[in-house]
């Protein structure tokens, strides 16, 4: 876990709500790429995380995988980004039975994370960070968690709920 000072230093230039989300095109498999702007028209949840294969059950990506139906009620897409290579992502994705793409911010390493202000230069990995990009490509929520703490999904769900209701919700779920 990082110290308070480190944490502040790392998070000082995180892209804030109201900013236009920088576009990117990153590989998700050896022969496929995903671009942010291909999702234009739908909200996108971008999940930066330090590394594939973290040793906990129900880590961040598994959690988001599990609650994908909740995000889909808002027609939101989920993408994960780390500096791991595509082959590592493939293995991890298969292992966790993920139903959303993992993108590889591998070359130049951490380039996209840097643009979003969530690259930890000293560690060579991305922060644990969440962004919600609205249907017009504007960041509406950003959050950086202490690197050792998985942020959960309560904040991002609240942010999704507070987006203008441009997309029709599919049904409702009891809470």
């Amino acid at each position, binding site marked *: 876990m990082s110290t308070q000072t480190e944490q502040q230093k790392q998070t000082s230039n995180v892209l804030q709500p109201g900013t236009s989300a920088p576009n990117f095109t990153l590989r998700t498999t050896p022969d496929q790429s995903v671009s942010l702007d291909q999702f234009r028209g739908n909200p996108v949840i971008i999940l930066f995380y330090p590394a594939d294969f973290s040793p*906990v*059950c*129900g*880590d*961040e990506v*598994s*959690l988001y*995988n*599990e*609650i994908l139906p*909740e995000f889909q009620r808002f027609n939101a897409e989920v993408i994960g980004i780390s500096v791991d290579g595509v082959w590592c992502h493939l293995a991890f994705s298969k292992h*966790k*039975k993920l*139903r959303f793409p993992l993108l590889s911010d591998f070359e130049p390493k951490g380039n996209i994370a840097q643009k979003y202000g969530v690259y930890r230069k000293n560690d060579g990995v991305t922060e644990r960070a969440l962004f919600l990009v609205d249907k017009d490509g504007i960041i509406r929520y950003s*959050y950086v*968690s*202490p690197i050792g*703490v*998985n*942020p*959960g*999904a*309560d*904040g991002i*769900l609240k942010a999704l709920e507070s987006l203008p209701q441009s997309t029709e919700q599919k049904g409702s*779920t*009891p*809470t």
Partner: protein
Amino acid sequence: MMESELTLPINSNRDHLLGPQKAPVTLLEYGDYECPYCKQANLIVANTVQQFGNKMRFAFRNFPLSQIHPHAQHAAEAAECAGAQNKFWEMHDILYENQQALEDENLLEYAKVLELDMSRFQDDFYNHTFALRVRQDFLSGIRSGVNGTPTFYINGMRYNDSWDQETLTKTLRDIINKNV
């Protein structure tokens, strides 16, 4: 830093609870019967409950990660079916003790071991009487910032520290001492 707070308060009409209502500290776990870390945590919780006696209350809610744990949902439902016959905690422990055997047929066997009314158990189990209840637990967890299994809440706030015996005991003791 964002603090995650329990959005569905503990309610003695719906929650499975151990310990007195007026205990100074309530420990809530969101757990998954097929998660090996939850199995470890169950032993630690059992020790903790014993250690603090009537000074603490423990509650358990379901958080089955069905994508990685294919048996977790049915196991959670089986625990609720047993709960309907006042044997929730007995089933809870049997499930963790037998984590490698959570097929439906195993779950039915455990119900027999607990001498439950089998026709009622089977009705509830096969009709998924408690599927919605499990789902409500799960959704309340998501809304409260559950970030994996197990996730603990102490007096309604997410506990982000380690849940090894020493750390958990110390944290609870500090809170109890403050409240006395």
